[in-house]
């Protein structure tokens, strides 16, 4: 009996000890891997031996298997700085980075979407790259763009994804359309023709879960014709004649039944699926989906065009661009090493390699990606992109996703007939946007 009691006590003590140790291990694991150890082992500038940087992004999931790891390994071989890749799908990455920003535990280097930058910068959770570039004597003229807040750079676009328009050539041919539309009127005529064959003309994903359809599909019409939704960095929705015309144009397409069904709950992948399955004649989408579409539907006969413009427009066409951006966490203890890594990714050779792997366009203007083995359609998209002005006004805007969502809701109310006019709709959207800019 006594032995049993002693044994029980020893067992209990062992369990308690194990649990306390495991808790201590939990608390210390992050630091041990990426920060504390490296500090002890000397995260010296330049050398970087023993420093491990966490790099959280969604790119690894979208690039060919192991491609990002190989690129990072080359950096480790050159500098001794280890890169711990934290790759997850886009939505998960966003939530994890937002949580990390809130708790001050963001990974050292983070993949960023332009629409997140303003909030993280204002929150003070991502580092001022202007200072880091200055400190390192970096020549930033080679960067094709920089995302700034209050005059300071917080994100550098590593690669860019253009959003041209896709056209299903077989559907158009069947409807008797010989030439790709270049103006909105021609586009409506093409939609009218294909709709007679029971095919939708265009698709727009307006799901509340992922409201990027406002950015990547709706606003592309406005930007293509040189319009803007902001003026001096503030919302310019109310009384904006070009935007009003765009709203009316999209409403007309809805009213005439040119838009693919289910738009209000559609997400971007659903739209791509509609196009891939030959149920939509046109869609505005990223070039990044080219490989997927070719793989899913090898026989699909499609082509690229720039988004049609308003009649009489003769200026440079705008093309929506999204990007894989990069930033450094403010809580990163090895900012110099982190900057070295960013500089490495932005170097012309590595940047060109990433661009080719990602089916994207480089963020370094001196990079010369070798697209010779790329699909000829991709090369055409690159040419179209170069002939247009890259634009995305949501990049760097405050609470971008919420701006898109509220605009999308007002647009749906107008389309459903709950709002009397496009002017009223834009007035309501303006009222919902203003608090974010104050």
């Amino acid at each position, binding site marked *: 009996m006594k032995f049993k009691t002693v044994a029980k006590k020893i067992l*209990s003590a062992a*369990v*308690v000890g194990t*649990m*306390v140790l495991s*808790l201590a291990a939990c608390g210390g694991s992050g630091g041990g891997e990426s920060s504390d150890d490296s500090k002890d082992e000397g995260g010296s500038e330049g050398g970087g031996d023993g420093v491990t940087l966490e790099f959280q992004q969604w790119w690894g999931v979208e690039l060919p298997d192991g491609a990002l790891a190989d690129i990072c390994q080359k950096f480790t071989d050159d500098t001794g700085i280890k890169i711990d890749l934290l790759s997850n799908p886009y939505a998960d990455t*966003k*939530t994890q980075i*937002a949580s990390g*920003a*809130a708790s001050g535990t963001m990974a050292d280097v983070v993949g960023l979407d332009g629409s997140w930058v303003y*909030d993280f910068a*204002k*929150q*003070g959770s991502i580092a001022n790259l202007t200072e880091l570039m200055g400190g390192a004597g970096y020549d930033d003229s080679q960067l094709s763009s920089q995302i700034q807040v209050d005059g300071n750079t917080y994100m550098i676009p590593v690669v860019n994804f253009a959003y041209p328009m896709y056209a299903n050539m077989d559907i158009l041919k069947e409807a008797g359309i010989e030439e790709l539309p270049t103006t909105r009127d021609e586009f409506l005529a093409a939609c009218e023709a294909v709709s007679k064959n029971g095919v939708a003309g265009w698709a727009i994903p*307006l*799901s*509340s*879960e*992922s*409201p990027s359809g406002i950015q990547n599909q709706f606003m592309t019409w406005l930007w293509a014709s040189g319009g803007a939704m902001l003026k001096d960095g503030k919302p310019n929705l109310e009384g904006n004649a070009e935007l009003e015309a765009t709203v009316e144009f999209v409403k007309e397409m809805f009213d005439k039944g040119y838009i693919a*069904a*289910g*738009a*209000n*709950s*559609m997400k971007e992948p*659903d739209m791509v699926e*509609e196009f891939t399955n030959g*149920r939509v004649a046109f869609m505005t989408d990223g070039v990044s989906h080219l490989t997927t579409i070719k793989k899913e539907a090898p026989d699909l006969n499609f082509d690229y065009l720039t988004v049609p413009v308003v009649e009489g427009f003769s200026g440079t066409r705008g093309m929506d661009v999204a990007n894989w951006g990069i930033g450094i966490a403010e809580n990163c203890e090895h900012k110099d090493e982190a900057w070295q890594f960013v500089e490495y990714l932005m170097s012309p050779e590595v940047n060109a390699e990433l661009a080719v792997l990602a089916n994207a366009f480089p963020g370094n203007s001196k990079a010369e990606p070798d697209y010779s083995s790329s699909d000829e359609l991709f090369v055409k998209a690159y040419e179209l992109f170069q002939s247009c002005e890259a634009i995305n006004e949501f990049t760097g805007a405050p*609470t971008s*996703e*919420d701006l898109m*969502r509220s605009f*999308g*809701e007002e647009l*749906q*109310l107008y389309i*459903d007939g709950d709002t009397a006019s496009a002017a009223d709709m834009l007035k309501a959207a303006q009222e919902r946007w203003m608090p974010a800019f104050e």
Partner: protein
Amino acid sequence: MTKGKKFITPYLYLLPTIILMCILLIVPIVMVIGYSFYDNVIINKNPVFVGLENYSKVLSDPVFFVAIKNTLFFVLISIVAHFLIGMLFAMLLNTRYLGVMTKGIFRVIYALPWMFTASVIAIVWRMMLNPNGVLNYLMTNMGLISEKVEWLASRDVALASVTLINIWSGYPFYMISILAGLQGISTDLYEASALDGANAVQTFFRITIPQLKPILISLLMLDFVWTLQQFALIWMTTGGGPVNATETISTYIYKQGFSKYQYSMASAGAVILLIVCTIIGIFYVRQQKAGD
């Protein structure tokens, strides 16, 4: 053993659990409650105590009231349907008119929805409820509808569609629990009732239901709390849209936090939800104690 040692010993045994509960439960809850009394925490480096202002803002937000209305519809319809379907299937599986093999096969089939994760359920149902999906195809061919219904994209039917998905995914929990309860009811009771001349309906209401009462009350309370907090399914199917048509308290809180970056407002909304869940939790514990 001294008196002090005797007093402290049980607490030492409880210490690991207490430490874990503090870290994983108490600290986050206290932090969220604390956040709800400050102006925008996290974004604002030096947040100021604002008392109940965030609660006032949340409770005066018309979208929050839409969310409450939708949540009530979603929760009440879901738990009633879960109960009815779960009871029906459990009784079918408990019948003596089916063979063991048949019962086994149907038990697996009926329980299948519970095996899927929310993301799989959302993807499957999004495909089925697509305007070009299976459901519209079948209904059109059967002559039930003349034009495609936008199940998740129409403000008129989106909430009902999402509720239907939740009913489908949640009834097996009731079915399995009730089936376990039914198998625990003594056959003596049914034999006695048969001798007394009770018919099937009387047997169901006078024997089956009273015998299952403790299980049913627990199920209803747990389901109420779980459905109230349902987020993943709604988020992945409609995201609370179109135009707030399926906005529930959980999606409202998520948008406040991760889309608007209004963490204090999100915390205030979360605390309101916590209060409701706590009230239900108290009833649940009381009921469990009474059962003991």
